[in-house]
């Protein structure tokens, strides 16, 4: 097999450190030349991208995460156990936002109400007591729920 030394190939910086010592770089061929033949497809000019759910469901992919719903505290607004919720961390929670809240370390879905500067989180389930946070409970908001996904059939 013949191969001739060449100048080093420039590497993408992603993972390769700057080498401070000598490099040997060669380029060889696996097999011979290839031949391209055939007709270009007449449909080529009309091909568009496929419909992508992300376009409508995810505004900021970097800050968007999916969570699986295990409880029924939001069942009155049609968020069922087994559903997947889309949560955007970059959105500022507003009055009436549905949020993923962390209450004493437990991730849970709640409706956020802002009344005169006071924030209240509550369940959307007539069968559950309205959620009242007792003193000393630690609460933080993980992100804002922007959509739910429920699969009806596969």
């Amino acid at each position, binding site marked *: 097999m013949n191969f001739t030394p060449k100048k080093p190939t420039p590497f993408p910086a992603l993972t390769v450190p700057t080498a401070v010592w000598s490099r040997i770089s060669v380029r*060889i061929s696996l097999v011979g030349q290839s031949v391209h033949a055939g007709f270009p497809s007449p449909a080529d000019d009309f091909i568009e991208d496929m419909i992508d759910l992300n376009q409508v469901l995810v505004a900021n992919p970097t800050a968007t*995460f999916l969570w699986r719903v295990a409880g029924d505290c939001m069942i009155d607004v049609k968020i069922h156990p087994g559903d997947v919720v889309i949560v955007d961390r970059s959105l500022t929670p507003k009055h009436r936002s549905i949020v993923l809240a962390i209450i004493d370390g437990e991730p849970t879905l709640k409706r956020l109400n802002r009344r005169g500067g006071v924030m209240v989180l509550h369940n959307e389930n007539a069968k559950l007591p309205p959620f009242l946070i007792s003193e000393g409970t630690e609460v933080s908001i993980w992100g804002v729920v922007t959509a739910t996904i429920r699969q009806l059939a596969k």
Partner: protein
Amino acid sequence: MTALALIDGNSFYCSCERVFDPKLEKRPVIVLSNNDGCAVARTAEAKALGIKMGQPMFQIRDLCRQNNVAVFSSNYALYGDMSRRMNSVYQGFSPDIEIYSIDESFLDITHLAIKDRTAWASDLRSTTRTWTGIPCCVGIGPTKTLAKLANKAAKKLPAGVLDLSDERTRAEVMATFPVGDVWGIGPASQEKLRHLGIEYAGQVRDMDPKLARQLMTVVGEKIVHELNGRPCIALETVALQRKGCAVTRSFGSRVTTKVEMEQAVAGYATRLGEKLRRHGLATDHVTVFMHTSRFNDDEPQRSVSMTVDIPEATNDSLTLIKAATRAVDQLWQSGFRYSKAGIITQDLVPPPIPQRALFDNLDHERAAKVMAAMDEANRRWGRATVVPAATLGGPAKSQTFSTKFEMRSPKFTTRWDELPECM
């Protein structure tokens, strides 16, 4: 003057675990290396318990139990995804980025119109925290070494941000900054410096570059220049679009035999094929490189690479393996302790549409079917359920490269069946 920012995720692996399990916020957390051998990431609470970086698990098992330490196997699917998210936040702050490692990136901010760099850095820091949940620190300086140093010093500040553009502030910080914490100064160099009474970064800055070179090779000379604010190590930015693709790893232990190297590189080629297929791309060449550790200056050093052309663009793992192992065969030389190897391709293209008239067409279709089946199996039952035989091998291989995941958390962000749960 050049201005570089270095951003890194605090206790990165541990922080990734905490994002999806808020209860961990109150517990010390450690993440173990591949095979669960030793601690490779620790939260501040775990450090406070005296758990050292790289400490073997068997030494700290009781300590962890007594102190309710949360112990995790490495979850690279999760860490990789969170790292990608962080870098995409950074790119909104400056397009010139060098992703240095899974949790560290340099940003070139020389030409950005920033009035107040500290405020800019705080903004970047809080955006990263809000969007990804990962806390990070930002160090700014005129060289990579100083940006690194600033970042390390920023870790101790409540603001988590330090700008060392100003020479006076720099001198102040370096006066008490231990040499062992300077980027590129390892334990051996540290020892040599101590014999000369050099303990702080400021003293290294004031060294004669020639003496630094005698003591610590050319690396030492560069460190002196860099500490003086003269850039010697260029930023290696990557283009934003996916022009190339790389799979590289540092070995857990040094590789000294050809068969180990072939198996490792075949594994990377397999992974490369997987990546290309997922993005619907192909390549007509692979570059294989391997090198020893440049920080072990007392050992013989070697760094080689080779590019193998493939006649027709492909994303077939078996073809890629064939090309890659040919490169290993050409490059291999015994007598060195290799610390890292990898495969890189550039100029990715869409895979060629099979031509019905071509005689080798049958092979093409068969290969594509095999790859599709392999990908599907790996998707469904986890990575490396089905692998090409070339990546398997003798007993040495299975121990060196396999990974144990006994205490791995779910792949929260990359698998539908492992999403985090909420009530």
